[in-house]
């Protein structure tokens, strides 16, 4: 355990920062206990831009988890494993992954005189804002989950994020890199201390036909060739031109994956799978690598997997008039999460309805109508998985969503189209089909609206 102490003239300044921050936390808690993961920190930073620096934190004990997909789950799992093993952890578990969120975690965990009784700091960090966070808190350990297409309205292309990460990488860091994601793997040259994690080919690994592009090599921009995908655009690979490739022998390789028995192995240690979806495997692998590096044995880590409960809103089940609505979250502008969701549904060969809501992008003004990421995704497995009826809903872009299905030769009679996000209209379509199994793929807001409607209406 380490106890952080504050030095010299910063004590008084930090005291007032914390007094201010804790007061805001208390006020917000009085209004709504679920809020306040970000605001107190934001306000304190406005008041004192070097607030985080004043803690004089041992940065070898700080782990940043960053990348495109899987940050929150990996952060939550690492936190769960460490705290289950009686380690004291400060973390931002609610996904408040900007400077304000990290500052808020410190405000909440610190005493008024700035003492932090903690073993490790485990912080999810937004990849775009990492330089600002790193400037305040230069973590010595960074986990890269993956660097993929995402949020193009603000990021443009993956290289934008890649360059941001390249600019903060340095030889002082220990890098936890996804062995099977080319951009993540290509960061290997920045440090001699690199720990690879990965996943062996398994029964849910897949390929796509030649009409689907793969990806450009981050070193030479030639074609990346994948042996298979364990999750979209992540799998054993090599560049068709230069030497970049996934390693065959890495210390943290998940293997012997059995989705039916919900178990896998890593270095002969058996683990249970709290969520048996392929895209979770890389989160498991990264978390095991980090916790083992921090001193826990594989047995101690494995013991915590059984009772891990992920943060809400990723995959949930709702009941509606005797039917099961299985929700799988997607991030808009993000083909990887859509492909993973489609693959998960396609695993179920029973008769079902698929509700697909590729909605308007409403991250910031101007809202816009992007559904183009769906053309990077392979719909064939789901088309062949016994879907009784498709419903394409969402204001404005419902026809574009339906068109994506028509391009996969789904008969137009099998597709209902609703130009609306209205929950009652969506539910009335469910009433009209015989299947009891409903899959809902859309962004989190629409799912929350449906959940709220069902609760309020008592359906």
């Amino acid at each position, binding site marked *: 355990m380490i106890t952080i102490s504050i030095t010299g003239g910063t004590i008084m300044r930090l005291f007032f920062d914390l007094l201010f921050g804790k007061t805001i936390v208390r006020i917000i808690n009085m209004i709504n206990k679920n809020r306040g993961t970000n605001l107190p920190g934001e306000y304190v930073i406005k008041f004192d831009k070097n607030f985080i620096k004043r803690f004089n934190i041992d940065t070898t004990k700080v782990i940043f988890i960053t990348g495109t997909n899987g940050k929150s789950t990996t952060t939550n799992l690492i936190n769960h494993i460490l705290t289950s093993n009686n380690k004291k952890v400060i973390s931002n578990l609610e996904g408040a992954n900007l400077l304000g969120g990290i500052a808020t975690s410190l405000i909440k965990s610190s005493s008024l005189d700035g003492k932090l009784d903690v073993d490790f700091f485990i912080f999810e960090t937004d990849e775009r804002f990492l330089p600002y966070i790193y400037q305040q808190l230069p973590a010595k350990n960074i986990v890269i989950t993956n660097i993929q297409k995402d949020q*193009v309205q603000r990021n*443009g292309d993956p290289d934008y994020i890649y360059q941001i990460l390249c600019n903060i990488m340095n030889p002082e860091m220990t890098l936890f890199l996804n062995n099977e994601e080319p951009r993540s793997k290509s960061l290997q040259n920045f440090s001699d201390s690199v720990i690879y994690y990965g996943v062996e080919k398994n029964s849910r690994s897949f390929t796509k036909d030649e009409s689907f*592009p793969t990806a*450009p090599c981050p070193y030479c921009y030639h*074609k990346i060739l994948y042996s298979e995908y364990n999750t979209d655009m992540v799998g054993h690979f090599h560049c068709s031109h230069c030497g970049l490739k996934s390693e065959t022998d890495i210390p943290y390789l998940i293997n012997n994956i059995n989705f039916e028995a919900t178990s896998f192995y890593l270095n002969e240690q058996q683990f249970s799978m709290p969520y048996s979806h392929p895209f979770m495997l890389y989160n498991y692998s990264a978390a095991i690598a980090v916790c083992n590096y921090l001193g826990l044995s594989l047995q101690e880590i494995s013991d915590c997997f059984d009772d891990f409960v992920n943060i809400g809103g990723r995959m949930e089940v709702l009941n509606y008039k005797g039917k099961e609505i299985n929700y799988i979250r997607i991030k808009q502008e993000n083909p990887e999460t859509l492909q993973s969701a489609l693959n998960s549904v396609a695993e179920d060969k029973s008769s079902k309805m698929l509700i697909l809501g590729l909605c308007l992008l409403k991250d910031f003004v*101007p809202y816009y109508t992007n559904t183009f*990421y769906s*053309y*990077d995704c392979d719909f064939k497995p789901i088309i062949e998985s016994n879907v009784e009826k498709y419903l394409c809903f969402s204001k404005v872009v419902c026809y574009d969503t339906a068109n994506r299905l028509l391009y996969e030769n789904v008969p137009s009679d099998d597709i209902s189209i609703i130009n609306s996000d209205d929950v009652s209209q969506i539910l009335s379509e469910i009433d009209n089909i015989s299947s009891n199994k409903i899959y809902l793929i859309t962004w989190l807001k629409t799912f929350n609206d449906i959940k709220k409607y069902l609760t309020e209406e008592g359906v």
Partner: protein
Amino acid sequence: MNDIIRVVWLFPDTLSLHGERGNILALKRIANKMNLNITIDKFDFENKNFNFMDYDFIFLGAGELVSLKRIKAHLFRFIPMLNEYILNNKTLLATGTTIALFGNEINRANQNSFTGLNLMSFSTQEKETVYGDDIIAKFNFPNSTIDIIGNQIQMIDIFLQNEDSLGEVIYGYGNNQRDKTEGVRKNNAYLTNVLGPVLVTNPWFGYKLLENIAEVKQLEYKPINEFELETKSYQLKYEFIREKESKIRK
């Protein structure tokens, strides 16, 4: 062979940012509806010798700006052939940031500039920030115009020199937000900032391109004048864009 429309898809794995594959699917689908035979080939870094003149349609999708220098280096040896291709009124479509390749100068934000293929007279400047939005434009053809709706993730500004624009911006950013021009056109080479599956959402554009090729090659084809679903989609999006909050003047 001459009764087939031959398409070549350039650097499909490198220039693949925004579901560009949809355009290839759209070409196949529209050609199928027109009773035209179509083949799709790919061209990549592995192709050292290649005859673009054997093709009727060249397609390049949107790619990362960082990759364009390497692509330009590979295409360098093909510049005379590509120039001949364009001067012979053959069809070429490029989308998104990739269109910078065809100009004479590509200026990166970090001051690392390089020359383009210099097949058309325009320059590009990388923007400091990305601008993502919808776009509505009118594309000009010799005897007609067509309406286009789509998305734009703009990372560059384009400044036309001695070259025509492909069309006018009705709403959106276009080449540089200021002059209301959209894209670049030289003969039947069309460069547009409208990226992703532009031919899926605007099949009338794909139809126009294929119709032109069919007429030049004197191929029989079935005329199509109805795209019901896409028209409904166009109308919905048009209304949404007209009403939405935006900093860009409508």
